[in-house]
């Protein structure tokens, strides 16, 4: 066993660029043969922008699994019964699409605000509140759709088609609630003036994804149920 006591080499801070911080390893080999360290121009993206893609990928896999389960289950036996989707779903879809627009408006306003291009008197959070309200309205609308279906006697266990309807819409609604929590977080950070641009961008990306996911689910349900 080697037990040589070894002093770790001291890093000569004079050789490092001024702002020494983690997160700029880059994709390429940044150090030339002679061992000198070049000043790195291109920094890695902030971790939250990678992380949000990780989250979206996991959600995609989850709904892909549920979609394939739906297709397999529908083909597995002849007990699949069709039912008409509650029309409020289409109204909810519009709400969610509009909320994406309002979030995009607010994202631009906040960017302008953070860039110091607007006066402090205009609240940059206003459109975020609108988005939050529309999002809550969407979840409430989904809840009304469930109430309407159950009033018609269509429950979770009534038929495999209704089982998948409830599972998919509930899973989506839960993820939308997660997005709303994200918007609340952004509003809080903004009010304390500690909002990071990357946080806002990540939240927006998640919210738009919820939109796309819902349109996909609506098409799936419309075609398959």
């Amino acid at each position, binding site marked *: *066993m*080697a*037990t*040589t*006591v*070894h*002093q*770790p*080499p001291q*890093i*000569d*801070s004079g*050789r*490092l*660029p001024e702002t*020494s*911080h*983690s*997160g*700029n*390893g*880059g*994709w*390429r*080999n*940044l*150090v030339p043969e*002679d*061992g000198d*360290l070049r000043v790195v121009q291109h920094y*890695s993206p*902030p*971790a*939250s922008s*990678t*992380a949000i893609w*990780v*989250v979206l*990928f*996991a959600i995609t*896999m*989850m709904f*892909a*699994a*549920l979609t*394939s*389960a739906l297709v*397999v*289950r529908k083909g*597995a*036996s*002849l*007990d*699949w019964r069709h039912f008409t989707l509650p029309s409020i779903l289409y109204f909810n879809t519009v709400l969610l699409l509009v909320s994406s627009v309002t979030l995009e408006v607010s994202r631009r306003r906040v960017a302008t605000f953070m860039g110091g291009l607007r006066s402090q008197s205009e609240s940059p959070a206003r459109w975020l509140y609108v988005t939050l309200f529309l999002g809550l309205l969407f979840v409430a609308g989904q809840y009304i759709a469930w109430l309407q279906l159950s009033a018609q006697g269509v429950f*979770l*266990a009534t038929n*495999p088609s209704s*089982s998948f309807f409830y*599972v998919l819409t509930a*899973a989506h609604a839960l993820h939308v609630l997660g997005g709303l929590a994200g918007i609340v977080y952004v509003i809080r950070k903004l009010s304390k003036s500690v909002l990071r641009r990357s946080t806002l961008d990540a939240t927006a990306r998640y919210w738009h994804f919820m939109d796309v996911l819902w349109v996909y689910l609506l098409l799936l349900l419309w075609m398959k149920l």
Partner: protein
Amino acid sequence: MRYNTTPPPTTFIRKHVFSLDHKVIGKQYYALALLAALVGMVLSWLMRIHLGWTAAAIPGLQLLSKDGAPGGVMTPEYYLQLMTMHGTIMVFFVLTTAPFAAFGNYFLPIQVGAEDMPFPHFNMMSFWVTFVGFLVLIAAFFVGDGPSLGGWTQYAPLSAVGSVAGPGEGTGTILWATSIALFCVGQLLGALNFIPTTLDLRAKGMSMMRMPLTVWGWFITSCMGLTAFAVLMPAVILLILDHVAGTSFFVPSNLVINDQLQPHSGGSTLLWQHLFWFFGHPEVYIAIVPGMGIVSHVLITSMRKPMLSHRVIIYSMGALAVLSYMVYGHHMFVSGMNPFSSLAFSFPTLVITIPSTILVLMWIGSLYGSKLRITSASLFALGFVSMFVSGGVSGFFLAQPSIDIMLHATYFVVGHFHMVMGVAAMFGIFSATYFWFPKMTGRMMNETLGKIHFWLSFVGTYCIFMPFHYLGMAGNVRRYSAFVVEYLQPLIPVHRFITVAALITGAAQLIFVYNLIHSRFWGEPAPDNPWEGTSLEWSTPTTPPPHNNFGDHLPAVYHDPYQYGVKCSTGDYVMQASPEQVATVNEEK
């Protein structure tokens, strides 16, 4: 902008319980895995004793379950309940948590030169959700009629109909599914931290190809986990709904169980198997790929020269990850799915042996002509290679549907997966423990005890799992709690031999536990770099590393990860963080 904005903790709770420090979270995961491994091992002892001496009463077992083990003799159902818990605990809470979550959490940020993971709160949640998942699973021992008896695969429809299918199939299975759903959440939160840490938080000069092979192992594993656990979670939720909400996802029509017509209709039992194995097969690689990274890292440090090719090892691990999603159907050759699908799944299964073989050739080929330093860590790394080869060879047979029809659900399969993913991954964990313990605790482990532990474990596990293959070829079906059929009775002496071997090998693990605890408090103080390694974990200003890992100055990386066999002021190696210029050998561009 520094990512680690959390100040050093001051209270006991923040320091040791709800800690945001990736190093503490890593150690918490390790402690959980150790606890789970001990529980899983005791369960295997109970099963082995019963298989060797079916009528023997195990003193005290009746206290755990009055109905399951009246007078200390377990019923066939209770045998299956213990087996289910053994499998679930080992696969999820040991083989996934220890090599990936425990060591990955501790060393991934340090090895890439970061101060912490980017989302420490999610990281903390990841551990605590997993811990609650473990408690929920264990709770099944103490509620209702005990844990589920469906096996770790929980095949539908029996897993989806409730207590009519047997003891533990009601509450026990619901607890099982809840535990697994929580586990999935924990692992997804883990991947959420591992992937951005690897991609975005690397120190200056740490290009992707300069990352140590361990980092590559954890990175590839977190990508696999992200895909696999995101599929398992909806599957177990559907299973829970079949239980509690009366849906029929997995239960077919006109199913009569114990003379009772089931109220479900039209579900697909194969659907569960597809969803489960789409997770289940990558899970095998989730258990083993971190071990591959660890073993490569330990072997390189011990043999004082780089691997024949750094890149080939990375690409092979990546190929395993991609292929692992294409082969899952080989678990289902006899499930009744279309026979043509068997062919489609058999082919990639044979293809996946190619990257596995390349990895083995890389390890063995690099060893050739090296001056290997024999330590407990390097011995366990060699043991890993040995187990991976011995267990892997039987995979060639099982990959072929025509042979699998005969060997399916026999001890041949049990021997195969225990060696190739169970024991091999355990050896990876042991190797990593002996290797990194000095850095994690500031104290050395006892090498003599470590070597005794290795030889007893190495010989012992061969004595246990090699005969499994012979039993399987003799037609010994798995999951039987007793061998009353005439053709199985001549095999009982083999089972008794295995039981004795299992008891001795299990007892040998107590040496490890003693070594671990004794060294933690009374071990020899460890130097900063006891194995003369080159990667960044050996460049921390203190041992164990401080709260932000590197003190005031983050390291910059000047060299490829494994620069051994060079002439340098420090000896035959140059550290990644050392700006010293050396005549580099084998540096890959």
